């Protein structure tokens, strides 16, 4: 059996007195879309930030393609960060730049493409997220859904091997939520990238995922394929599913 592409091994993390993870272990396979669900404040975003070294665990190992991210210096993290992109919860678009400036930024940082190639790539990803022609707009001219789509375009612009999604549908209306979820699904279908999605939105989780992991008791209690997760009799999973409106979890 292949070694996991991404692996969290017995990770512990606390902020002051507050323990977030106490022995988290989780594996992600190359090419799959794994969704991590859990209630608010269960540390889902912390997990993603630890994977790209924005936060360090107190103990344990986080392996990305064999590299222990938890022990890597900022310089050693550079090649890792160039292979992983993240879509932040609020979009985290740079206010001082236009839409095209935002999308071009990671490409300019990488320094592999000339300005013409960068402009072409910006146009390509904007058309992929359905926002062609909005290059010159500034982030404050965009609606919530448009911001998420620009952030998504920025996340995939550098053709990363892994995309991390932090609550990609939070704060969006149901129609925009569906569009974003379909977009994420289509992008991964086409590019065959690995994705980790953290969300408390089960409907989106079921739509985009290969497997679903449930966070509880400061560790992942269970990782199951979508259908098994849906039918699981595990009390924590049942409680989480039953708390969701029926329409949202219906197949």
């Amino acid at each position, binding site marked *: 059996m292949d070694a996991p592409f991404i692996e969290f091994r017995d990770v512990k993390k606390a902020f002051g007195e507050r323990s977030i993870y106490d022995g988290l272990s989780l594996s992600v396979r190359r090419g799959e879309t794994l969704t991590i669900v859990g209630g608010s404040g269960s540390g889902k975003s912390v997990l993603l*930030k630890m994977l*790209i070294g*924005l936060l360090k665990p107190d103990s344990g190992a986080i392996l990305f393609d064999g590299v222990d991210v938890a022990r890597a210096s*900022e310089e050693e*993290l*550079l090649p890792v*960060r*160039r292979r*992983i*992109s*993240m879509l*932040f*919860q*609020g979009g*985290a*678009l*740079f*206010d001082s730049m236009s839409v095209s400036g935002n999308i071009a*930024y*990671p490409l*300019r*940082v*990488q320094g592999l493409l000339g300005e013409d190639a960068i402009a072409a790539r910006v146009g390509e990803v904007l058309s992929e997220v359905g926002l062609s022609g909005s290059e010159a707009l500034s982030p404050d001219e965009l609606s919530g859904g448009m911001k998420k789509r620009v952030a998504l375009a920025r996340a995939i612009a*550098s053709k990363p091997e892994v995309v991390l999604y932090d609550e990609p549908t939070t704060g969006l209306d149901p129609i925009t939520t569906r569009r974003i979820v379909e977009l994420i699904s289509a992008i991964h279908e086409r590019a065959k990238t690995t994705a980790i999605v953290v969300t408390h939105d089960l409907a989106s989780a079921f739509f985009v995922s290969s497997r679903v992991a449930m966070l509880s008791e400061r560790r992942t209690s269970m990782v199951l394929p979508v259908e098994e997760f849906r039918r699981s009799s595990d009390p924590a999973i049942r409680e989480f599913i039953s708390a969701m409106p029926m329409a949202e979890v219906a197949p």
Partner: protein
Amino acid sequence: METTYGSIRGASGKIAYVFEYAGGVFELMGRALKLVVRGKMAGAMERKAIIEQIESIAIRSLSIVVLTAIFSSMVMTVQFAVQLARFGAKEYVGNVVSLSLVRELGPVLTALMVGGRVGAGISAELGSMNVTEQIDALRSMGADPIQKLVVPRILATTLMLPLLTTLANALGVAGAMLTARLDSGVHLSYFYHSILQAVTVQDFVGGLIKTLLFGFVLSAIACYQGLITRGGTQGVGRSTTQTVVITSVVTLISDFVFTKVLLEFGM
């Protein structure tokens, strides 16, 4: 007993915070200097960012610096002229005002104004970027926020402060000259010659060296404050206010230290 223990613990906590804060600012200064020395600021993206910051800082502070310099030198001229007239030395007002302006008031007032205006702007900008995860986004792309955000602001402020001070000195002296003529009847050419007599190149250069140091320290504090901002929009507001207070206090304290050191070197 418990109250005494509590207040001692509170005081020691505050002292520890001051040391931690100062350590953080010095570390940031060190990292910024290292990036400049290693030539990491010569790339196209970095050059563009520095030029943008120079434009923004110069434009943001020009009006307030000019107004402060002109009016404070005019007030000083009126006050000194009245006091010197009591000893029959009204004509020496040019010596006193120009020397105080070039050696002290020009650099310090400009630093206070820029520290307040530009420093608060830098803290608010970096603080907002921090609380909206823009700095995390930058790091996640493999970019160094110190290189991309901090160093351009430090370089721009450090380079612009001496230029703004020179302008403040020139306009301040012009304002003083005009006030002395209109308010106290001191002839313009007399005033002009008394400046040449009183102010040496060392006085001018000493003042400018101080502004270089002020610019470096103030912008580093403002950037550091922005980078440690937490707590949403409320946190950004708190950070901005703190920057104004800290940069003002640091300007006044460091002015004393820099003045003593420069005097040792004959400036």
